[in-house]
């Protein structure tokens, strides 16, 4: 029997071999890594998520609602502060998706003043809905177990009762993003916080052992996932970078009960004190500067406020703004 192959078979076999070679070459061509492991850091404009409204020349830039006798509820204080700013309709339009970012960082109950007061959060939810928001989301990326933080802070229950979508963080809700800040560049960003029409920052005024005092600007730590614990090596610069990235529509600081010592986590009721105050502002630097005075800190001693001012995020001289003080 002859060993010779037919012309047809030879062509088919050569064709197959050539096809495999071509396919391999094409894959290698398409996936060839030209960058290597040392890809040059991308330069470019800093990424900014600006949800802000412009100051309009007449309405308040900051409102402080206080209760001298301590009888007013957190809800009454919150309503008074937002009303003094011109009402929620100034900030939220009909059909908006509003994301509310309280501090739900710790497995602590409201009395311990480590998380935002749930009544303050619930009131903001209600105000947003009254202003016609399509969807109100309440979320944070917690430090402790999120289920526990959301439940024990009371925010889950209070916000849910007002019809908010309370979103718990999960690995899958973080996407890598190039922030191109001075310090922070390639970080996983919490998508639930940035995908919104309007963002309202609702922090609590607290002592912080490393940063001194924190409220509004530091609250944006909740934007990030990943190895957040490395930010402390340069806490002021990372706070400034995050506050530059996130420009909220409105900031409402809960100073109903503040944490004076052992912040940010606290735990001891002796470390807390009632200040019976809720502050609202469109200037996140000014609101921090004022709130710091409530726990006895001089804003001048807080480097991240100075950086915020230098970057044009706001002013530390809060008295220079149009401030409305309301007694409740």
């Amino acid at each position, binding site marked *: 029997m002859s060993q010779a192959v037919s012309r047809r078979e030879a062509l088919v076999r050569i064709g197959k071999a050539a096809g495999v070679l071509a396919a391999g070459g094409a894959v290698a061509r398409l996936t060839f890594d030209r960058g290597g492991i040392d890809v040059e850091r991308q330069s470019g404009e800093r990424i900014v998520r600006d949800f802000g409204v412009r100051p309009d020349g007449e309405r308040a830039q900051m409102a402080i609602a206080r209760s001298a006798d301590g009888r007013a509820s957190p809800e009454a204080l919150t309503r008074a502060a937002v009303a003094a700013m011109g009402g929620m309709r100034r900030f939220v339009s009909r059909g908006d998706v509003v994301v509310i970012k309280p501090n739900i960082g710790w*497995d602590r109950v409201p009395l311990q003043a480590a998380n935002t007061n749930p009544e303050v959060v619930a009131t903001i939810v209600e105000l947003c809905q009254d202003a016609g928001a399509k969807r109100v989301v309440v979320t944070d990326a917690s430090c402790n177990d999120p289920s526990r933080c959301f439940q024990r802070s009371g925010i889950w229950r209070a916000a849910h009762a007002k019809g908010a979508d309370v979103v718990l963080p999960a690995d899958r809700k973080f996407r890598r993003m190039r922030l191109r800040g001075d310090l922070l560049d390639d970080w996983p960003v919490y998508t639930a916080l940035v995908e919104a029409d309007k963002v309202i920052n609702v922090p609590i005024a607290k002592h912080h052992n490393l940063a001194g005092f924190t409220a509004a600007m530091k609250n944006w730590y909740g934007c990030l996932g990943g190895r957040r*614990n490395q930010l402390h090596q340069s806490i002021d610069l990372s706070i400034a970078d995050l506050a530059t990235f996130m420009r909220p529509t409105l900031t409402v600081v809960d100073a109903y009960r503040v944490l004076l010592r052992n912040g940010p986590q606290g735990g001891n009721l002796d470390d807390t004190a009632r200040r019976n105050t809720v502050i609202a502002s469109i200037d996140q630097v000014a609101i921090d500067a004022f709130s710091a005075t409530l726990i006895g800190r001089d804003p001048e001693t807080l480097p991240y406020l100075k950086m915020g001012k230098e970057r044009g995020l706001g002013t530390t001289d809060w008295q220079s703004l149009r401030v409305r003080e309301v007694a409740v």
Partner: protein
Amino acid sequence: MEQLPRPIPWLSDRPTTPTVFAEPRPIRVEAIVAATASAPAVAIPVPVVVHPAKKKNKLPGSGIPARTSIQILRWARRLAQAGFLLLFLFLVWRTEFRGTFAADTADAIRMPYPVEGFLLADPFVAILTFLSTHQIYRGLAWSVGILAVTLVFGRVFCGWICPLGTMLHIASWVRPSRRGMKRIEANKTRPYQHLKFYLLVGFVVAAVFGWVGGAIFDPIVIAVRSVGLAVIPAFGYVAERALQGVASSNVPALQTMSDATYDFLGDTLAAIPARQAYYHETWLIGVLFITVLVANRFIPRFWCRALCPLGAMLGVFSRFALFGMKKDHAKCTDCNLCLVDCQGADSPQGGVKWRQDECHMCLNCETACPEDVIKFGFLPGRQKTQLQPDLDRRKVLAMAGAGAAFLPTTRVSDALDRNYHDRLIRPPGAVEEREFLERCIRCAECMKVCPNNALHPAFFEGGIEGLWTPILIARIGYCEPSCVLCGDVCPTGAIQKIDERQKLGIGQPPIRIGTAFYDRGRCLPWGMDTPCIVCEEFCPTSPKAIWVLETDVVGRDGTTVHLQRPVVEPRLCIGCGACEKVCPVQDDPAVYVTSIGETRSRTNQILLENTNYNQTS
């Protein structure tokens, strides 16, 4: 004759038993029709009665279907198996704290229902811990129920209830490698089935001496551990990766689809956990589980027949069962149909004694029997039944000796008394180590429920006797101070059911599980003059166990840096490991927790004030 369909197709190499056709029974119409078709030359009168419908589910042998009651019972068994398996999987999957909008801030956080229910009903767990601790721990009293069922009906637990048994049943049914004669041979009673009884003897004796590690072989424990620590995390990983891959495709339609699937699986069904769970050396648990599953390809229910100590124990008790098999050997035609789907390899066929101690009560044999040989009923005669395994007395004694020798040999290895592993950090509320080993069945309930993924199956940190017992690996997750869920789900009291006041130390000393130490050479403020103190921020005690030493340091370039250098106060440290978890020195943290100072031990202490050698355990 080649084309002639035989009543039992897989017996083609044997001559057909003439009795099959000689019996005065209805003529097998289809056989004759087929024979006619294949051999047209032979003139055979075509029968008048043709039932084409019967052709589909023709019954071999006499063709008489099984009793309706048995057919109903077999379907009831299948439904029970499916129901119990689904219930079991649901409970394992729900062994986690999810939180709810409905809860008040002051509500105690506990499991809403007994997720460890299957373990509480497990008589093997109950007996082992009873022998080691001389008491039945709380919910384990439920296991009396399974015992009661066994005393009436035999090993129905194995055939009807056991979730691992059902998984293996399914695995032996889906594309087995041995069919026909080979499968019949595989389902005959074999000496390897004695192994489980010998193992049982060894485990029981070891439990008397104070080691309940034999529960590693318990089927419910295997199922919880394998599904909870390997199958569910792996499913989450695959789902996460697949959806992540689709989401990063940069095709908007695909991304939307991926996001919607995420929301449905993650938020609506909670099928994908919020955080990927990792378990220490869980590959071994996964590989062993797959091995146990794959073994069914060759020998159906190999695990149940050869190794399961719970099955062996129920087999010991099944001799008292009131329900059983009646066999009429005279009617048997040796068709072996009863053996094709026999689960327990318990000799249902004629000519040999039925093995009550091996039978799973699946009722497949009576359903399959075409000749009315096998009938199940109450109080059957026992002439044709073997009630107990014919064990070799010497092997029993040898296994008892091995069980007795196990604990002394492991105790004189260094792990427990002298060279105590510093990372053997037990969950909060765990009892003293010796008592712990008398109670821990390694079911992994505590590891599955831990909200921070802090608890892990030990490899050899606690010696061989501590394999797969829970240890805290703070680098992966710390112990959440207000959480007591591990004790809440522990079925044997190895972790006690403490409450939040005991754990946090409200009006009493808190429960400590260890003490934190600094490696100052690796610590940023101490060794690298860089601000950090994330550990101090996360330290949950009040007052904080970590305090900071304020200092100004002149750096290499002459500038002064203000530093806060963290220091541990061992009197206040509870060993939760939050500091170790959040330390930014990723690979080998600058602050780490070891077990010293743990409340449960009176000797593993640093501070004189916590050491009390006179205290009874």
